[in-house]
């Protein structure tokens, strides 16, 4: 597994030009996630209107993998239902923890398939999951009716 397969052009593109970056109003829930091993931090907001994710915005410090992954994720989930986003999360997590044995459906996942290489680098799995985990956490809080981060 070469590092060039890890850093696909798609990933570098998202890293250089992040989609949906910057914190925006309105939002239902804001969460703050940390990767203690490297200190990466992410603040992420979601806004859900009638079961549809109307916005995901964020402020992130982190490596190319974590930032690009958050960027790709935001593009994928905005405009869809919460349920769909949580399903996407499950599939993405299965792939990334699959040590290269699980692949994603390109139709459904679009740019996220570029992260299949990350599954070969166990040390980077947490990086790729940071944004996704924050999104899942935020959606679960919305569903539970929690408005503020506890």
């Amino acid at each position: 597994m070469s590092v060039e397969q890890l850093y696909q052009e798609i990933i570098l593109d998202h890293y250089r030009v992040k989609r949906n970056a910057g914190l925006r109003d309105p939002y239902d829930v804001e969460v703050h996630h940390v990767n203690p091993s490297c200190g990466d931090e992410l603040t992420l907001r979601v806004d859900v209107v009638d079961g549809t994710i109307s916005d995901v915005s964020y402020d992130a410090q982190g490596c190319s993998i974590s930032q690009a992954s958050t960027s790709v994720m935001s593009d994928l989930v905005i405009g869809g239902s919460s349920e769909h986003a949580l399903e996407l999360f499950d599939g993405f997590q299965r792939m990334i923890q699959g040590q290269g044995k699980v692949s994603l459906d390109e139709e459904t996942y679009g740019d996220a398939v570029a992260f299949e290489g990350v599954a070969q680098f166990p040390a980077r799995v947490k990086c790729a999951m940071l944004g996704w985990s924050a999104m899942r956490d935020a959606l679960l809080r919305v569903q539970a009716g929690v408005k503020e981060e506890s």
Partner: protein
Amino acid sequence: MSDLYDVEAVRREFPILARQIGAYPLTYLDSANTSQKPQAVVDAIADHYLSHNANVARAMHVLGAEATAAFEGARTAVADFIGASRSEEVVFTKNASEALNLAAHTLGSRLGPGDEVVVSVMEHHSNIVPWQLACERTGATLRWFDITDEGRLDIEGAVRDGLINSRTKVVSLTWVSNVLGTVNPVAQVAAMAHSVGAVMVVDGSQGVPQLPTDVADLGCDMLAFTGHKICGPTGIGVLWGSYDLLESLPPFLGGGEMIEVVRMTGSTYAPPPYRFEAGTQPIAQAVGLHAAIRYVSALGMDQIAAHEHDLTAYALEGMSHVRGLRILGPTEAVDRGGAISFTLDGVHPHDVMQLLDSRGVAIRGGHHCARPLHDRLGVQSSCRASVYLYTTHDEIDRLVEALDYTGAFFSGRLATTGGVR
């Protein structure tokens, strides 16, 4: 100096250094994190297990006597190595972190509200958190030395602010920073501590492996260090303390071997060092540490220090030409150890680490267990390259080359020009 030092001969003692990482030779520049082990250390451990293994002290048969002699022999070797006056001043722990927790717990028994403990903002978490916990338990206050813009201990500022004063009960300071490489004026700070009656604890985790050590010269009352950074095994650390101080302290962990008399209604405790060594000790690890000390002593700690100094200067100079690279800490090899932390413009440390790794160059990316220092420096994380007694000039060249490549890769320069600089 370095013509006498035959680094190629040294490297032959470390089989792991011959590894290939993909198409590249391993370039191990993460020795401040953990050092590699020479064959002699690995063999000493294996020989112990296969020929002399038994529990110590409590076992009095032949194997027990051999194991006890090996374990206590390691204690004596450590004492000699750091210039301790008695081997009973050497307490074995599992690592430097346990040693510092032992210090914080036992010295903590004397703390109360109004008392102050002083550390520095450049400490490793292992020399911060134990003191935070001790202060929480006792109501004492934690204070700290700041650093100067060059990344050195801000003694002037400390004097101005009365950091060390009559309320100060403990000062705990790292000898050599694991991030900045700064060598702190420990003896000077110890004198300040002693002038107000405070106990001086030194974190020697980075200093002891790199510099000749003499506890009297350091002027401290306690010194902690860890086996795995000085060519020794994991699972062993050392807390040295002056005998009178150790004797005045309560126990830390309770259990077998640290006792005098145990009754269900209460127990009395053994004298140092045993009072602080509960349960079966890291016996084979002490044997391995002894072999490591023999190994570095045979090379000569002053030779090792000179070799590191030479390489650090060479690396600082080479890295100064890398585009967008900023060094954290002293940029000159003066009072400076072999850890060089840096950032690369626009590239996150994880990504630097990963790109370098793809070329066999192993460095560390993150906050290196020194988050408050990174906060202070205004960076979220950094990269760190660190040399040791087996590092070569070639390896530094490979580091610099790989850093150039990394900068180009992430800025897109590589794709367009096909070249690097």
